[in-house]
């Protein structure tokens, strides 16, 4: 009896202590780590390179880089028109793409029957999100700029057409992320609502949308920061490369010439003068900061409204 248990115990101990070398598992985790380090290293190199080049500009000129207008002289050139332009673009995009995109998502998730047509629409929205942004620029040129060509004195190349083009550009992204957030709301909540006699509208308005808000906000703000970084479509539809004088009136702001931060980066990077290299990096730092702030805003919103179920 006692020998039997001790033998068994010995076998168990032996098998427990046998350390097998799991080569495949080890190799796999090394590969994972290398990939992670590679992407991290790229990011670090990119950002630190820009910081090293750009920060001296801020050290030398302080905030005048932010408050000066564009200029062909590197010593005086600043970003103020780009900041104003990007801010206004963000507002226009938020006011148009968010409601249209979120409501489209609500329709697709809560109202569409899930039949062949809605699946077809769903697939195509996903495809649209992969269309190159230049193509959206062409669309903006053909539709928005043409429509506004008689308004104001800018041939339709103004911040409104720019904003609308960017709005169309991120619309698929807004729809997809909002639809996913809405889909993530547990069906039990909808059933509970219907079960006590709520109409579909009441269920959507009072139960589904509040529960989906954190996800919707995160997705839409991230889409917005994508829009803020777009250059190609804006250049195509007439954002100004080079300097221009911006009027102070509301009409000038919305119907006059405009530019945006990424457009300035593109413009300055092509300038022949060596001094613009550092300025380009400074502009990139500002653009990155704006994007980081937008993303941080998204995270704060999400945490604030986060609910568990």
């Amino acid at each position, binding site marked *: 009896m006692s020998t039997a248990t001790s033998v068994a115990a010995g076998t168990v101990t032996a098998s427990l202590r046998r350390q097998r070398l799991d080569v495949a598992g080890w190799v796999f985790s090394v590969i994972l780590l290398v990939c992670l380090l590679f992407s991290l290293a790229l990011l670090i190199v990119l950002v630190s390179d820009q910081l090293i080049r750009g920060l001296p500009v801020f050290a030398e000129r302080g905030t005048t880089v932010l408050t000066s207008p564009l200029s062909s002289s590197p010593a005086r050139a600043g970003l103020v028109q780009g900041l104003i332009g990007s801010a206004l673009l963000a507002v226009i995009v938020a006011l148009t793409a968010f409601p249209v995109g979120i409501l489209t998502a609500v329709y697709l998730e809560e109202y569409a*029957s*899930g*039949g062949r047509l809605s699946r077809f629409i769903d697939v195509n929205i996903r495809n649209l999100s992969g269309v190159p942004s230049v193509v959206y620029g062409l669309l903006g040129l053909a539709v928005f700029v043409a429509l506004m060509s008689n308004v104001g004195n800018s041939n339709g190349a103004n911040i409104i057409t720019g904003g609308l083009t960017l709005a169309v550009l991120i619309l698929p992204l807004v729809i997809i992320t909002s639809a996913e957030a809405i889909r993530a709301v*547990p069906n*039990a*909540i*909808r*059933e*509970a*609502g*219907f*079960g*006590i*006699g*709520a*109409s579909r509208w*009441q269920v959507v308005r*009072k*139960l589904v949308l*509040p*529960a989906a808000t954190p996800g919707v906000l995160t997705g839409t703000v991230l889409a917005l920061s994508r829009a803020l970084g777009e250059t190609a479509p804006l250049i195509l539809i007439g954002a100004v490369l080079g300097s221009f004088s911006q009027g102070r009136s509301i009409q000038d702001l919305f119907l006059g010439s405009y530019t945006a931060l990424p457009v300035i980066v593109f413009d300055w990077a092509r300038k022949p003068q060596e001094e613009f290299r550092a300025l380009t990096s400074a502009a990139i730092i500002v653009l990155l900061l704006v994007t980081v702030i937008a993303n941080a805003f998204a995270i704060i919103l999400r945490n604030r409204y986060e*609910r*568990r*179920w």
Partner: protein
Amino acid sequence: MTTATAPDVSKTGEAPAIHIDIASSSDGSSPTKPPVITLDDVSFYYGEFRAVKNISIDVPTHRITALIGPSGCGKSTLLRTINRMNDLIPGTRVEGRVRYHEEDIYGPSVDAVEVRRRIGMVFQKANPFPKSIYDNVAFGPRLNGFKGNMDELVENSLRRAAIWDEVKDKLKQSGLSLSGGQQQRLCIARAIATQPEVILMDEPCSALDPRATLQIEELMMQLKQNYTIVIVTHNMQQAARASDRTVFMNMADDRAGFVVEQDETVTIFTNPTNQMTEDYVSGRFG
């Protein structure tokens, strides 16, 4: 023997007193009232698949009707045809008549939302809204534009659901902070608050421990004084303990559910007519 214990249970809700004989004790008052819901040759289809077929049952007023049967025999599907919850699933279809106070609830001019207000529902998994306890209960009345004293209505509903004492000091807390059994009683309070006439319960105790289960069963015994209850249950003991009438369903060869036998609960459990019923209630299959 039973008349003495029955009222006690409904007032104090003492757990051990509940037995089959108590459930049958309410016979005296009921048979005179017409059934509140009548199913007449009802079949239900998911697309081409017929989930239940040729169901004809009466749901007697102010009594508890239990639907029992093996998994997949269509009990829940049948329950959900009674308040048109299945309308929400695309590609489904009902044949036959579901009458509520003689009105065909699938009739062309009937509003499904109104049907669900009058025929409330409690689900298998407790599903409080991610809102406060108070707002959970007030949600339905607010939808209906309730003008009276909301605090009073909330309190009464919570009292009727036998959960008031546990939550009266934390009405502002999230409904999700409660335990499973409390959440389910909160859902019952929420269903009661819209003042339905019938409450459908879809395996309300399947996720609860025995103690919480017993609390819900006691609660049902109290509720039946004011409401008509239809409950789907996997648990035969529960049907035996807590229902007045039992409908036994089974699956046919074409996988469609049908009613094998329906009768007073005592009869089903002690003296069933059909061999299938006898095998099922004695635990020989299912």
